[in-house]
């Protein structure tokens, strides 16, 4: 009896071990909304039709994606092809866990690397090696509620910080006059990505070109003071103040007239708030015109046992067919010039705002470890939730973050 139980346990364990071995190639992405996943599955069906003999499993990863992928890379359970965020790319390229793709690129005849926007290619390049092929990009743009703009009598869209603040003020309304604001001009969020466009517009940087930390420099501090000021002066709200899930949700529920977001808000609004009449315009300019662009690539882990197959899938997904289909919903912009031109992204009333923004957008990449980034998030929380002055919060944290610079 006892022997039997032990035997069963051992068999069971062995089986569990072997599970991983004979699997076909695996592909993983993050999950942001059901509508986005649906589009993605269609793209994958396209690949299946073209290469019916090629087997693969699609395993979307919900939850904290970078954390999970890192864990999978460290435990040799990583998928053979996965999304790599531009932001986390430097650390991963440093760790040497990604397969260099240059041999594959040169072997594939019609692979034209010059067709990609240079900023997107460079985000995944280190020491002359390409570690990821950018699949799409997304600049932050401003979404606005047309109805609210009409009611407030605003007929020209804000173009700089001053006109933006004025618009926010006019759009902040206490409808039932009970002393509580029912509609805000704007919505803020104490996250680094959201503040960065304002920092860039003000001539600041997380990491200066010479590699030093820029968070306690004057332009950065001023930008945070401006952004935080929108909230303290009562013309902007925060998602949790409204019981909303995220900024886009609050915008959809018409709690605020303007919200900064990337293209992912478009399918979300179409799905959840189809009635909403909204428009899009480039972020207002500060000292200079700028915004943050996020770019995402496909990467193959060094430990993969299906590298060749993974490249075939990658090549299809970033190829003309795959990229055209994926970007057609507006969830993200194509990283290939040819795809953007062919599908009329430069003429489209909504997409052209994204393409225009791409002209002055900057990627957000830093050579600091996750912990350093997290320290800055905490400093922002101190500003927004504990009323700490932006200047103090940033100067106090500077020394701490400097410790987390990645060393080569």
């Amino acid at each position: 009896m006892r022997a039997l139980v032990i035997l069963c346990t051992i068999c069971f364990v062995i089986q569990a071990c072997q599970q991983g071995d004979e699997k076909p190639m695996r592909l993983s992405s993050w999950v942001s909304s059901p509508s986005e996943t649906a589009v993605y599955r269609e793209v994958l069906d396209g690949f299946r039709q073209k290469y019916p003999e090629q087997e693969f499993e699609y395993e979307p990863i919900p939850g904290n994606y970078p954390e999970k992928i890192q864990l999978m890379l460290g435990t040799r359970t990583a998928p053979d092809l996965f999304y790599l965020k531009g932001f986390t790319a430097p650390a991963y390229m440093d760790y040497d866990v990604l397969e260099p793709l240059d041999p594959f690129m040169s072997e594939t005849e019609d692979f034209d690397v010059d067709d990609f926007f240079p900023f997107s290619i460079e985000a995944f390049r280190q020491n002359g090696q390409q570690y990821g092929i950018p699949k799409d990009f997304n600049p932050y743009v401003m979404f606005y509620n047309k109805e609210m703009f009409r009611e407030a009598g605003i007929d020209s869209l804000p173009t700089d910080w001053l006109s933006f603040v004025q618009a926010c003020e006019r759009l902040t309304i206490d409808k039932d006059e009970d002393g509580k604001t029912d509609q805000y001009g704007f919505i803020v969020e104490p996250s680094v990505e959201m503040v960065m466009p304002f920092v860039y517009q003000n001539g600041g940087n997380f990491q200066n070109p010479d590699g030093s930390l820029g968070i306690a420099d004057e332009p950065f501090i001023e930008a945070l003071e401006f952004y935080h000021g929108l909230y303290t002066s009562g013309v902007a709200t925060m998602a949790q103040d409204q019981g909303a899930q995220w900024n886009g949700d609050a915008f959809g529920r018409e709690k605020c007239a303007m919200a900064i977001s990337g293209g992912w808000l478009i399918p979300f609004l179409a799905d959840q708030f189809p009635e909403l009449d909204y428009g899009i315009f480039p972020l207002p300019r500060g000292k200079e015109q700028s915004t943050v662009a996020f770019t995402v690539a496909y990467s193959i882990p060094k430990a993969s046992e299906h590298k060749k197959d993974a490249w075939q899938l990658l090549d299809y997904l970033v190829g003309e067919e795959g990229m055209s289909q994926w970007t057609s919903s507006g969830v993200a912009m194509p990283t290939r010039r040819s795809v953007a031109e062919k599908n009329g992204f430069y003429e489209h009333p909504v997409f052209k705002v994204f393409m225009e923004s791409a002209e002055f957008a900057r990627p957000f990449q830093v050579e600091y470890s996750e912990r350093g980034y997290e320290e800055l998030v905490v400093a922002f929380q101190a500003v927004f939730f504990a009323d700490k002055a932006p200047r103090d919060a940033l100067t106090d944290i500077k020394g701490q973050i400097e410790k987390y610079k990645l060393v080569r």
Partner: protein
Amino acid sequence: MKAKKISASKKQQTKTAYSFLAFPLLVFSVFTIFPMLFAFVISFYDWNLLIPDKPFVGLANYVELAHDPVFLKAIKNTTVYTLGVVPTQTFLALFLAFIMNQKIRGRAFFRLAFYTPAITSSVVTSIIFVWIYSGPGLLNYLLSLIGVEGDDWLFNPKTALFAIMILNIWTTSGYFMISFLAGLQSIPQSLYEAAKIDGANQWQQFWRVTVPMVRPITFFVIVLGLIGCFQVFDQIYVMSSGGPVNSTTTMSYFTYQSSFKYFRLGYGAASAIVLAAIIFVATWLQKKYFPSEVN
């Protein structure tokens, strides 16, 4: 005759005993003994799963911990948490047990009521309390009835830790109530009779008879409470992820973050060892200054 028979099987006994113990001891060695020793080894290395070479760094992880403001904050938070939760939950558990030990109708129902939070998954109770504490949640609704306006309790660095402490007290007091209840039932009724004759009311009976009689159980409840509170993790993970402004980062959450978010397993192991040392000292202090038996 009998004795001879049994002693004859001594070899047999040894064989049987070790075969009975084989599997438990195997699991125990692989998942407790070895990891415990291994933890010390790891803590001397810069151990990142993504980097193949793992350099020996000596005490560097411990030195860094001593200068890490987040870790120091975590020690402070954990101490505040434990000092707040343990006495309150212990007293509340005893109080509940005292109530339950009275002659009341529907005792089984009340026992279930007080015990439900304790047997429910910590994730479940945490989610429910996130709703209660949220901006448009139950707590603010109740406060609005008496004309007080509250904000989102978990997003305020001043209240977040306190809010989670209350949740913890709520869940564990029912659990320890059962421990106390068993103890109360073994107190001879004659002691209460004697106290009644002396004219003691229920409250006085509670302090003069009940409290001293359950001292051994109180010791046990406090030790378990200390160990549990020092290692609080689930509630933090679900409710606040250590935020805002690290106001709810506890030591075990710090260990988790360092190890599995920032992937510095050596640093994480070192922080866990510091936590273990603190727990040892705390239980030792308790044993010294509040022994289970009065000498």
